[in-house]
């Protein structure tokens, strides 16, 4: 009985903690929640928002998905989320990062499940440096027609609500941590960074507990020369990430106007398409029903019923014709959507390629430098060990 209860409780817990969905109203953008207390700088967590997964793995040809547009969105949307988080004042530096090799206090990953002018669906997962999960949730938002009004459009993104909601969820998670826990996360990040550059010197400082959560086993001295070197390198690493932000910012600026225009027009086309499809469906059903009723009435013995039946058949015929016409008209909107998507794709593809090239080139140069520093740090560690090794021989000639 106890086992059954435990199993039930575990099942309930799994259900509660498993990925959840939230539908966000875009017409009411929630305000950014600000921290209740000003945290000391040592407890401000740096956040890395990884370039989103464009969600093209299960992409099928008949879906109206334009791969290059998705790739561009995968670089554009993280920036909006990063800005929302930064604007909340709850975090240290919030940056878009190109790969999860970057060591950050909190890593936010996102996957674009669906994106067009009408609907945006994002799956967000966030973990801190300890490996603790903060968020695993799917957010969905439908744009209202007001989202594309000229006054609204210049103020914020049509789906700003989704970014504010995510930022608020993460801020609430952070609020639930004590200052000591936050400082611990920052320390773990530093030691992880140190270990990635000098595993020989920093391997023993971190360990994983039974739940797979990273913990600090021991601390290096504050004035440990190796840690000083690592800190100097880390400052450079942060400078590199900051430089990348310029690239993402420039790309977003170039993409902004055509992309938002595409969203607006595709929203209008999608709404028109849905209305026509609904009307077409209604007319076809009503027309079919009227014809059937007319045929039934035409077989009646009463003259008036037969006349009414004929009228119903003619009326049903008109409705059917209208329904078919609406369906054909809807096809025009489908083609228009296709045309809009392809047009945007042609416009932004060179920018996506340029951003990718610049990011890869800069990352490549940086990685090359890092490899050299790793070798040097390994040599320094060996030299330091060489300094210490002869000491016992003095005591034991």
């Amino acid at each position: 009985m106890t086992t059954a209860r435990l199993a039930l409780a575990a099942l309930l817990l799994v259900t509660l903690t498993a990925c959840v969905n939230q539908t966000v109203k875009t017409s009411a953008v929630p305000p950014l929640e600000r921290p209740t207390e000003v945290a000391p700088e040592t407890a401000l967590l740096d956040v890395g928002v990884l370039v989103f997964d464009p969600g093209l793995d299960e992409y099928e040809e008949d879906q109206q998905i334009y791969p290059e547009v998705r790739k561009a969105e995968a670089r554009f949307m993280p920036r909006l989320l990063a800005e929302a988080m930064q604007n909340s004042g709850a975090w240290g530096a919030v940056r878009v990062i190109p790969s999860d090799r970057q060591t950050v206090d909190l890593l936010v990953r996102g996957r674009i499940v669906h994106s067009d002018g009408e609907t945006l669906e994002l799956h967000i997962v966030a973990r801190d440096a300890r490996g603790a999960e903060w968020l695993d949730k799917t957010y969905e938002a439908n744009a209202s027609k007001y989202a594309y009004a000229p006054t609204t459009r210049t103020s914020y993104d049509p789906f700003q609500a989704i970014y504010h909601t995510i930022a608020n969820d993460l801020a609430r998670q952070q609020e639930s941590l004590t200052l000591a826990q936050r400082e611990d996360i920052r320390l773990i990040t530093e030691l992880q960074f140190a270990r990635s550059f000098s595993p020989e010197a920093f391997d023993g400082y971190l360990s994983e507990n039974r739940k797979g959560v990273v913990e600090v086993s021991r601390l290096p001295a504050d004035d440990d020369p190796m840690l000083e070197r690592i800190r100097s390198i880390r400052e450079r690493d942060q400078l590199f990430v900051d430089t990348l932000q310029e690239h993402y910012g420039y790309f977003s600026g170039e993409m902004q106007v055509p992309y938002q225009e595409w969203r607006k027009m595709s929203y209008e086309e999608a709404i028109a398409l849905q209305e026509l499809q609904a009307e077409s469906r209604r007319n076809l059903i009503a027309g079919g029903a009227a014809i059937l009723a007319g045929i039934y009435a035409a077989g009646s013995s009463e003259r008036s019923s037969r006349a009414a039946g004929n009228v119903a058949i003619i009326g049903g015929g008109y409705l059917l014709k209208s329904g078919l016409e609406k369906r054909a008209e809807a096809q025009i909107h489908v083609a228009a959507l296709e045309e809009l998507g392809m047009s945007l794709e042609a416009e932004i593809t060179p920018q996506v390629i340029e951003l990718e090239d610049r990011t890869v080139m800069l990352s490549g140069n940086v990685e090359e430098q890092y490899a050299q520093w790793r070798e040097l740090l390994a040599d320094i560690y060996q030299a330091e060990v060489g300094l210490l090794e002869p000491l016992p021989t003095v005591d034991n000639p």
Partner: protein
Amino acid sequence: MRDNPTLDPGTLAALEAAMEAAAQGGNAGTGEGAGTGSETGAASGQWPGDTQGSSPGNAGAGTGPLTPAEQVAILDARLEAGAGDFDTMILEEQARQRSARRASSDDTPASESAGGAPAGGREGPYGEDITVAGAGGGRGSVNTPGRSAPANTARYPAPDDIPSGNDDDVVARQLREAAMREPDPAVREKLWDEYRKYKGLTP
């Protein structure tokens, strides 16, 4: 729980010794002792923990075997040289970004800039400062509060008699950077003396 530092005593003195050795290597005309950013990786690969005087830093000086502290100091100097190259690379990238931004803003039609998205920051509808993503292009620094360059590059200004350093070679640059970082005034002055000696400046 904190570890005790392992290399505190003598580190500063070793740095000075290594700097001198590096400077002598540079004067000897070999240049190997100092290395450059591009040589760093290859140079470190040539020296797998060798302590018998075959390291590049020692070869240039033509003196006896280096102590571990001297080895560390020389490796530190290479690390610094790499950091200098890294900073140069980042600065060049930032300069490229600035010129691309300028070119882009020159190309932007007047009508677009008038009717398009607002450029830069503004007061958001919820009282927060919102910067529309990319509006105006290249304003990525919104996410980078107060970080322009590594803080340890130059903490103490150079004395008045020290020239700008535009023509510094690698050894001179290392000496200059070490001096500008050095908190101890006495050691700092020694490092500047080394710099003057190396550059042939009359004190």
